[in-house]
């Protein structure tokens, strides 16, 4: 275990070599970008997401959402039918009609996202044009954005990246020096971070997305970006194009990750070490204490992470460095080196890093390695349990608050619980 007594102990091991990346192509057991709507619409409470797609799209979202959590959700699907494909109905007219009906029902909606899908991309439905046309009609009451969540172009969490990136051009300009936190985090986490930044004297601090999509934060040359999620690369680059600068840091998972993440901002604001330590010490102490149980349970155990949410690399780092697990393989749907530049050196050198997926071959590796814990999607978890493996289904990691000091124990618990359960149940 690494010495966490000084927050600076995140330097990579001397002379370490970049892990070899295994690139694979084949069947992927990963959601498409539409799935992000499930948490995006909870975060932005004035936003409505209209997928333009097929019945499959509608079925996917409701299945991923656990079916019907909300009586009338703030998302829907405009399902393409034979008439639309045959050109009997004008797609523009149809979309206008649906949007108007929808907004009449929901006067509380201030932001409408038109979300492209596989079918709408393949038939080249121009949603940008549709958004422009609708804006001419509806703005300023409603602002219409568009992005693609299609499975032929995006994996799971890239949907969030595309949605946030769609907001960037409409963000107001500012030269003010500010910290912008990029990526959806739970409201409770946002509040905690706001308090910590205030104690550190860092500010103003703004969040993308804001709780109301309409309250777009400004951006400009004085903006420093702190990325809360490793999958918002395109958004980050679009913000950089508007003058912002990225603060490189590991992601705020666990005591170490959170401290290093906060330190990146503290250094940029010239916060002295004494103050930084004073502000972060209670959080670090609580996070470490709360991780103790999970650490006892997981230390020395072996974990295999299948590709899912792009959180795999930071989480593997957390599991290894803070919970003492050894990492067999870290799968990631795609490797965005810029986004994980501060994370890669912290991975254990023996871990295999795999990009993309050939499901069957990867499962062969899982079975051969017999990990103590396999992090995988819902479609695989029960079958692998039945083969005698202990699993953690990964979608929980994007639906549960896991960022920051106060959630570190919860994050550890997510991985420790399946292992504890298997130990409790008598054969």
């Amino acid at each position, binding site marked *: 275990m690494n010495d966490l007594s000084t927050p600076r102990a995140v330097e990579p091991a001397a002379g370490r070599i970049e892990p070899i990346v295994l690139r694979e192509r084949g*069947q*992927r*057991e*990963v959601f*498409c*970008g*539409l*799935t992000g709507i499930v948490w995006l619409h909870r975060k932005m409470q004035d936003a409505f997401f209209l997928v*333009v*797609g*097929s*019945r*499959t799209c*509608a*079925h*996917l979202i*409701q*299945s*991923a959402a656990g*079916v*019907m959590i*909300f*009586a*009338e*959700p*703030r*998302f*829907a*699907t*405009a*399902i*393409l*039918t*034979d008439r639309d*494909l045959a050109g009997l*109905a004008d*797609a523009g007219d149809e*979309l206008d009609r*649906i949007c108007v*009906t*929808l907004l009449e029902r929901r006067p509380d909606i201030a932001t409408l996202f038109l979300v492209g899908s*596989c*079918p709408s*991309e*393949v*038939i080249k439905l121009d949603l940008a044009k549709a958004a422009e046309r609708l804006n001419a009609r509806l703005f300023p009451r409603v602002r219409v954005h568009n992005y693609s969540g*299609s*499975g*032929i*172009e995006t*994996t799971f969490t890239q949907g969030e990246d595309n949605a946030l990136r769609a907001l960037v051009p409409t963000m107001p300009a500012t030269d003010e020096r500010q910290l912008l936190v990029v990526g959806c985090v739970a409201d409770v986490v946002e509040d905690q971070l706001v308090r910590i930044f205030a104690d550190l004297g860092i500010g103003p601090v703004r969040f993308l997305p804001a709780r109301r999509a309409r309250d777009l934060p400004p951006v400009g040359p004085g903006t420093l970006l702190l990325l809360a999620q490793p999958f918002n690369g395109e958004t980050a680059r679009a913000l950089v194009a508007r003058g912002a600068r990225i603060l490189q840091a590991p992601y705020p998972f666990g005591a170490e990750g959170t401290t290093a993440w906060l330190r990146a901002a503290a250094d940029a604001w010239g916060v002295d070490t004494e103050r930084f330590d004073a502000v972060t010490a209670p959080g670090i102490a609580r996070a470490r204490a709360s991780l103790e149980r999970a650490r006892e349970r997981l230390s020395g155990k072996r974990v295999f992470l299948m590709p899912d949410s792009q959180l795999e690399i930071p989480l593997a780092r957390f599991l290894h460095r803070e919970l003492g697990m050894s990492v067999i393989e870290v799968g990631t749907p795609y490797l965005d080196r810029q986004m994980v530049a501060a994370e890669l050196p912290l991975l254990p050198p023996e871990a295999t890093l795999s990009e993309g997926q050939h499901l*069957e071959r990867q499962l062969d590796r899982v079975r051969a390695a017999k990990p103590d814990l396999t992090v995988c*999607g*819902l*479609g*695989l*978890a*029960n*079958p692998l349990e*039945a083969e005698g493996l202990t699993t953690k289904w990964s979608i929980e990691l994007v639906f549960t608050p896991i960022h920051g000091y106060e959630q570190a124990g919860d994050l550890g618990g997510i991985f420790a619980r399946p292992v504890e359960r298997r130990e409790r149940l008598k054969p």
Partner: protein
Amino acid sequence: MQLTLWTYEGPPHVGAMRIADSMRGVHLVLHAPQGDTYADLLFTMIDRQDRRPPVSYTTFQARDLGGDTANLVTRAVTDALERFQPQVILVGESCTAELIQDQPGSLAQGMRLPVPVVPLELPAYSKKENWGASETFYQLARTLLADRIPPPGTPRPGREGARRPRANLLGPTALAFRCRDDVTEIGILLEKMGVDVNVVAPLGASPDDIRRLPEADFNIDLYPEVSRTLATWLERQFGMPRTKVIPMGVGATRDFIAEVAGLAGLDPAVALAGELPGQASRSSSASRAPWYSRSVDSTYLTGKRVFIFADAAHAIAAARIAAEEMGFTVVGLGTFDRAFARDVREAAAKYGVEALISDDYLEVEKAIAAASPELVLGTQMERHIAKRLGIACAVISSPIHVQDVPARYSPVFGFEGANVLFDAWVHPLMMGLEEHLLQMFREDFEFHDGAAASHLPAASPAAPRPAAAVAPAPPAQAAPAPEAAVPANEPGDPQWTPDGEKELGKIPFFVRGKARRNTERFALERGIRRITVETLYDAKAHFSR
């Protein structure tokens, strides 16, 4: 374009997956982009399956388009054959693949594989899940039985020797409602009658079992949504008769026994010995439900208003049970499956209601709110509607959720099924004696509005409100939902006077909603603007005529 919030059925390729997943020795190759693998979790999570569905996905990406997506199909088929060694390969495509027109079925057929290939046409932009399941089952059987179809006009061979009659049980699949236990229950029933089960399909069947289908004397079309197409084809091509009664409820089970006896050449009187319709005792049926329904505790079930919305077969059967075996009043009947709209309309006419044929969740919600039932029998969707409206609910059909796949044996077909349904429908309601006590002691502090039935969790069916609220709340606004779209009172609607409101508060809460609605309707129809104590009792007298 069709605006959809929630969908009752998935796309047709999910129907195809249900067939493949139900069987042994069958593998489905789906030409589909990343993301479509979501459907795996329906099987592994909702149905708690301990293996992956036998499905391979080609996972094509944008960069493959215009390139060689077809090559992905042949590779996926080759890999699936080598790895899973199925006896039959189904080849289909999801909505996006349909647009790029690679014809994966024909491609696979052209590969000269050592096993039969069944190409599936699954039009994603006009058809849905049940259709996809039904079509896949039919195409699979057609392919496997192609060389066994007798020439037209061939008389069906009689039953040789003293062999017992044989039946196929057709239609049970993964992810359908209670299939696992219904098949067992109907198997027990047939065994008692002296009828052998030849093949159960698709659930648990292999391709060889499908080839043996014609060896049965007749088919039991147990889940017509899935098996009607095939059963009709077998009737036409092989001269195999099929059943038409769904054995759900005691009356329908008795009818089913008589129908099966007829098809099997057995004496129905023997098969139905011990069934004494109309008699009120524990020993009058193999099911306890008739006696339970006649025992005095059930008096309070009389005339309970029930709204039924489900797949057609379960909805129609449930309506009959509700009306004839529970003594409920059917106030709504409908289905999301247009293919069976006519059957449901006919059934609805029997109960004097207009059938609701719709797959629009909001329309169903509106209809339920308007009918103000005391019990909703529906799907997972109606469970949510009922929860939001504060109405009791039991699930009787797919789409289902994980709690509808119980660990215990709980069929809904046959005599044991009737017992299960009695319990499942009465449980969310107030037990008779308890409802009686509440009436007697309603002024008692422990029997206030918020006191729910003692066997249910703490949530009360109606949100407690002060008895003399100043402004009346909209009628159906029970469980407060942040995103509720319950119709609110129009400004011109009648207003309750404080006295009227107070009197209304003395009416037991479980009938108060109905009293409120009836009184308001009564006042509205007569142009009464202020609802007083007098209006309340005038309305009560009016509606109890």
